[in-house]
């Protein structure tokens, strides 16, 4: 491959964004690898014809100012987060070319989670990982890739595996994942290795242009300043000290197995949103139950309801049913569940309010109606019923009698009646029918007509319809 001497078009002619110093030269130290790698990236981008769609994510590290130089879309990321930032960009613009450019502190220490997971998701981006075995920008502290025994400002006695562990081999680590398409480790030491690096960077970008997947090129690169040695010796140092720990070569290249596909922009869907979001069709206005009979007791007309039982007894669904039917009949409603682990295997309860006015507190502390499906719930919530309130309980499951005499008690063998219908789980809907029949809150027919508003599985509706009607019939049979 021919080495080009003229400045790449993907660099600015003059680095106007650079605030100080000579605006025609980069800020890197003499002998630093970053400059070479930048150049290789720009050359590949120009050759691949993707300058207008390339977005360069610069990291925190010496290359934080990459945007001074690259005539590309530039976004600067927090320390270690370049793969996450790149993910955000690429997901929004799948037709862009995203380069996550990272040092070893950035990628292999603080950003370990981000790189591993971006690689694991196979984000269609190119990661250029500059491994210089040190923190350059902050003044030569130890990196995760610092060699055993290597002295840095934070490993002044030499990196000790006992204290700091061993150098992290990033290419090998990423190679343990399934998704990546291309992983190679190269070095910047002599003409041959430089050429290899150039080819690797080009291939990684080419694969992204062909929409193939995630690539990572790890480049062993000199930091003469951080290492405290002359640039020429620095190259030798890579060969002698880094290469034995970080062997060069291609760890994976699945490019040929994956067919190329075009880079397509993501269309913005603006039509038919309400349908896509499962919103009720316009015009499906709820029927107002104008003039529908209301319970004589005003409290029962706008009740505060507590429904409680074991998780799995359909307690929350019954509450939701009360609220949904209320809504359909044009009333103000709210439903508030107990939530979280307490529901797992334990008790569940919900507060429901139905009112003609805006509902303040959705939490029901004092209830007008209590519906209890097990004994602990009955015992816990019975004291909170207001005097004159109404208690419904599943008498097929609760063997004790309610304690209070200043309330109206309605025993409903809901589980037994549901069993007779062939499904224990319908006990909650048997109870629903009983509640509305006894209180007059809604008509049984109102509930039946609106079952679809809270029971999503249509095939369950016939059974639930029977259950609601059975509950209503049971109450009538008592009269």
């Amino acid at each position, binding site marked *: 491959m021919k080495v080009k001497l003229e400045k790449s078009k993907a660099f600015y002619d003059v680095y106007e964004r650079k605030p100080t110093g000579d605006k025609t030269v980069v800020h890197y130290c003499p002998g630093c690898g970053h400059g070479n790698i930048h150049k290789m990236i720009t050359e590949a981008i120009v050759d691949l014809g993707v*300058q*207008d*769609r390339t*977005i360069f994510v610069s990291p925190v590290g010496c290359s934080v100012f990459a*945007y001074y130089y690259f005539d590309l*879309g*530039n*976004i*600067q*990321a*927090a320390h270690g*987060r370049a793969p*996450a*930032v790149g*993910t*955000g*960009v690429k*997901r*929004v*613009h799948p*037709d*862009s070319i995203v380069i996550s450019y990272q040092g070893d502190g950035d990628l292999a220490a603080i950003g370990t*989670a*981000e790189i591993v997971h971006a690689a694991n998701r196979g984000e269609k981006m190119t990661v250029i990982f500059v491994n210089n075995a040190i923190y350059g920008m902050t003044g030569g502290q130890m990196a995760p890739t610092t060699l055993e025994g290597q002295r840095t400002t934070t490993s002044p006695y030499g990196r000790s595996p006992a204290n700091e562990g061993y150098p992290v081999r990033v290419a090998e680590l990423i190679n343990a994942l399934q998704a990546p398409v291309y992983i190679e480790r190269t070095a910047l030491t002599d003409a041959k290795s430089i050429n290899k690096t150039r080819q690797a960077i080009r291939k990684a970008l080419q694969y992204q242009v062909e929409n193939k997947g995630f690539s990572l090129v790890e480049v062993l690169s000199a930091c003469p300043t951080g290492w405290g040695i002359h640039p020429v010796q620095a190259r030798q140092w890579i060969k002698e000290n880094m290469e034995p720990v970080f062997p060069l070569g291609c760890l994976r290249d699945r490019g040929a197995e994956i067919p190329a596909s075009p880079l397509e922009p*993501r*269309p*913005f*869907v*603006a039509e038919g*949103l*309400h349908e*896509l*979001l*499962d919103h*009720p*069709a*316009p015009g*499906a*206005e*709820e029927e107002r139950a104008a003039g529908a009979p209301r319970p004589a007791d005003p409290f029962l007309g706008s009740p505060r309801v507590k429904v409680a039982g074991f998780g799995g007894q359909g307690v929350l669904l019954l509450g*939701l049913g009360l609220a*949904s039917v209320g*809504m359909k009949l044009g009333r*103000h*409603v*709210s*439903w*508030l569940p107990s*939530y*979280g682990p307490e529901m797992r295997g334990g008790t569940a309860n919900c507060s429901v309010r139905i009112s003609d006015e*805006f*509902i*303040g*507190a*959705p*939490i029901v*502390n*004092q209830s007008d109606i209590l519906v209890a499906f097990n004994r602990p719930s009955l015992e816990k919530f019975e004291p909170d019923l207001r005097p004159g309130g109404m208690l419904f309980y599943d008498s097929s499951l609760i063997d004790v009698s309610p304690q209070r005499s200043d309330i109206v008690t309605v025993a409903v063998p809901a589980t037994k009646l549901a069993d007779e219908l062939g499904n224990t789980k319908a006990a909650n809907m048997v109870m629903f029918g009983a509640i509305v029949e006894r209180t007059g809150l809604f008509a049984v027919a109102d509930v039946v007509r609106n079952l679809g*508003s*809270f029971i999503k599985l249509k095939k369950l509706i016939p059974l639930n319809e029977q259950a609601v009607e059975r509950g209503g019939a049971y109450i009538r049979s008592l009269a």
Partner: protein
Amino acid sequence: MAKTILKGNEAVIHGAILAGCRAYFGYPITPASEIAETAARYMPRVGGTFLQAESEVAAVNMVYGAAGAGARAMTASSGPGISLKMEGISYMAGAELPCVVVSIARGGPGLGNIAPEQGDYHQVVWCGGHGNYHNIVLAPNSVQEMSDHAMLAFDLADRYRNPVFILTDGAIGQMMEPVEFPAEVHAPPAKEWAIGVGERARRNVVSSINLDPDELEQQNLKLAEKYARITEAEVRFEEYRLDDAEVVLVAYGIVSRVARTAIEALRREGLRVGMLRPITLWPFPAARLRELAERPAVRELLCVEMSTGQMVRDVELAVLGRKPVSFFGRCGGNIPSDVEIAEQVRRRTARQGGGR
């Protein structure tokens, strides 16, 4: 539009999608997980992105990338996750990226519990991240507002190029109420400054770094000027029965709902009590509170919160000693009851010689 019954956590995604949000990045946490679940369900349907990130840190940085690329993007979490998102939020404030972050507060500190609390007021309103920045903070108190505020939040975020928080509590997130969506929605604005595909976008830089102290000072002053404009234009609040109020309750989120019920009961007893509910916690309705404090009829302002009193200082700063500011709160996941709140007010009116 017909009404539909949803959880607050669901409604916020419906509102966001109607507002043109097509990118959600998040990590599960109770009591906010239904937000991610709803996004996971609907984002693919509307051609958007849903991604469960490896952490809240990653999620917020994905939002940074998507927002920098011009999309309306969002994330959501609860306190422990919001703590991790502070990094990205500060970066977005610095780079002036619009985004929406939803916080469904639960009990803290530490792992705390998953019941509703308002102990993250300082974290969100006074900004837990680093640097001179502000979040715009909306505090919905109903499922309808969860949807409405999602739309408002994206508009404010774009208008001011700033992170906007929707801060509420586990109760508002978990409860279901009827919600009505607007029939017509408008497309989100094009963003000239964003990175993306095309020659023009190539000129753009998204960054918060500036090594030059004078330039960074200017940038900070520019932000300060923006925050002053926001304070001027975007204060929102709701008043309830304040006309002749002697005791002014100040409450937001679920507490404002409970307080309303308490006020109804107290009014039936003849007590003159009302409420100011901040809808924006930042900017805070300080000027309005000061006006109220200057009314001769007003004797006292009572902050009611599910915290140990995190909003009290803002109310005190607003009224500047014109009237006493007192506090009643529950925390740890307890919601004060209407009975408790009413009792607090009765005690005060009795102490002041009755309010009848």
